[in-house]
């Protein structure tokens, strides 16, 4: 259990990463400063990745579901905050960065074989503050979104110009028997009463943009639960079978890359044949979530105080948001992240 808590925390408990000038200024205090911060937030939310012609693929690589990865030391850099300092070793995280990058390259190669021409990779893993892929070893055609914070977290930069969305190295949801299972900052997260994992939450936001999920890779638990949540039209790639929260029967990195390449090619073919539908749900969305029991009360207070969203408090650490916009749900995820940081 603790492991799962630690891994998930990596996404949400890192130190402030504002530039030095901003850090020196601290939190906005006057009305003018608040207005400036708000204007900047609107600007960042409205930005797009550079446009490219051809079939566009948006790839979200996470680390816990990669082939071979079983232990937190393999996915944490050690600079995410005090409690992570001892949870890394250069023999582990550095090595897995390269494996991660190669998994993404294999996915791009497969998609390219099936005719894709534009690739955006958005770091989905919070280790090293969303900077795990090695930029110099990544396929040179790819645009890489790295760093933190970013407005839509795991799908920052996605828009309706993309032909498909793929998740590699994804992990199973909080409380499930998957390797390093967790779900953002939550012990539970449902929309209209339906439990969603990280893939599902992002699939809903993407679905609203008309973009569907064509490939998901991770352990067997993740694949099974994701089919339940968003349907089984996507191409599944099982990288390993979980036999414990930090143990798995895993395929070799080379074999995983082969499966990802073949899977991504099949995924693009399915998309181009119109065989995969975007994941949608009935509006308004009734979003209900419970913050992790392991978070201090100050986090709950901060989330309760998020004035941008009309949150209803349902219990000690449970809230409800009713909205017609999945994008607003994404902004809420980002805001909760900020609240956890404070």
């Amino acid at each position, binding site marked *: 259990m603790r492991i799962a808590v630690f891994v998930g925390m990596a996404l949400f408990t890192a130190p402030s990463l504002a530039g030095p000038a901003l850090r020196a*200024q601290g939190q906005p205090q006057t009305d003018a400063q608040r207005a400036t911060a708000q204007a900047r937030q609107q600007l960042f939310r409205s930005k797009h990745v550079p446009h490219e012609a051809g079939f566009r693929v948006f790839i979200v690589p996470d680390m816990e579901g990669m082939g071979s990865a079983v232990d937190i030391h393999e996915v944490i850099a050690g600079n995410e905050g005090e409690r992570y300092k001892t949870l890394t070793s250069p023999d582990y995280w550095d090595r897995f960065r390269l494996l991660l990058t190669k998994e993404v390259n294999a996915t791009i190669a497969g998609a390219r074989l099936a005719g894709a021409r534009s690739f955006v990779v958005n770091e989905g893993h919070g280790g090293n503050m969303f900077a795990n892929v090695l*930029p110099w070893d990544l396929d040179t055609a790819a645009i890489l979104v790295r760093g933190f914070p970013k407005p839509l977290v795991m799908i920052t930069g996605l828009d309706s110009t993309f032909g498909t969305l793929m998740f590699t190295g994804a992990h199973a949801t909080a409380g499930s028997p998957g390797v390093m299972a967790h779900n953002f900052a939550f012990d539970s997260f449902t929309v209209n009463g339906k439990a969603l994992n990280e893939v599902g939450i992002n699939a809903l936001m993407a679905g609203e943009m008309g973009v569907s999920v064509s490939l998901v890779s991770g352990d067997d638990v993740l694949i099974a639960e994701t089919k339940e949540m968003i349907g089984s039209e996507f191409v599944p790639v099982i990288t390993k079978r979980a036999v414990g929260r930090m143990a798995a029967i895993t395929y070799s990195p080379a074999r995983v890359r082969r499966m990802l390449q073949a899977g991504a090619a099949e995924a693009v073919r399915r998309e181009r044949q119109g065989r995969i539908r975007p994941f949608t749900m009935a509006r308004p969305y009734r979003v209900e979530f419970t913050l992790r029991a392991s978070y201090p009360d100050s986090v709950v207070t901060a989330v309760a105080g998020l004035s941008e969203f009309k949150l209803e408090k349902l219990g000690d650490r449970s809230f409800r948001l009713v909205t017609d916009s999945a994008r607003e749900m994404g902004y809420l995820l980002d805001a909760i992240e900020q609240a956890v940081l404070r």
Partner: protein
Amino acid sequence: MSAGRSVGLTAALLACGGALQAQGQPAAAAPPRDTTPPGAYFGVTEYRLARQKLELDTQNSGFTVYIIGDMEGLAAVVRNATEMRPVDRGGTPQHERFRQELTDEVNAVIAGARAAGATQFIVNEGHGGTLFRNILPEQLDPEAILIRGYPKPIVMSTGLNPKVDAMMIVGAHANAGSPGVISHSFAFDSFTVNGRQLNEAGIAAFIGGEMGIPMILAAGDDALTAETREMLGPLETVTVKTVFSGSAAAGLSPARVHGQLRAAAARAVRRARAGQLKPLVLDRPYHVRFCLRRGYVRDDWVRTTVGRLPGVADGGTPGCFVFTTASAEEVGNLLNEIEWTVLKP
């Protein structure tokens, strides 16, 4: 310039190691101040000397390009704490890979400029992460002259002289207050000349402009390239990343960035040789107005010391000052003295 360099400089130069302060956050109980006037370390005389020395090595004919290499605007850079500082200054080993990237980007613009007929290359270290020793000398184009180390007079324009034909800046970051990755500007929250906002690239262009040297290429994130075109006109720019927060961006592959830098540097030199890129020339006298970074404004000693620098007058708002002169070089020297002042313990 790295906003985070003050810590290491202070410790290294004045042997005050241990009392490390966060950038822009003067310690509450300040230790005794070193009140040595800036001129005693380096000032007008030394800048002149540096200029004369570089002039000896600057060719009389051909086309000489002066390249400033900063780091925050390099491909893939998003985070100050882990990527812009070496281990011995509170950073991580990740910094080392970005030194290579800096060297590669400088080499790319040299290759492009050479293809368009440039014949001499002077490279000035513009980032303080390792005390202005970031470029890997053995991997830099062997024909380039490299200016490295600190202190050096007018850090980002050291040795600039009228024999130089054009300036370029790579790895540049956006101005203080701009929505860019690790955006900042020297010790300032704002810096204007005759009412025009200038970022670090703009200030270098202003100092070079008086000698007739145009800034012909700037590379960095989309905030930097947009604001620099606004400040300096239609110079060549390479946007290496699109900003999503002060520490997140969508970046092109380094390999693609190098290709774009080569092409842009070649275009820039061709346009400069055809007389299409003009130096930044402002009306004299220059009315400089600057506001210190908020962290420095709270530091009484820094505020007072800067206020007493020769020619500096109160700007009406606490921490803001005005300075009027007919010489851009004097503005450079003022910058130098302010930098020296804020770096003291």
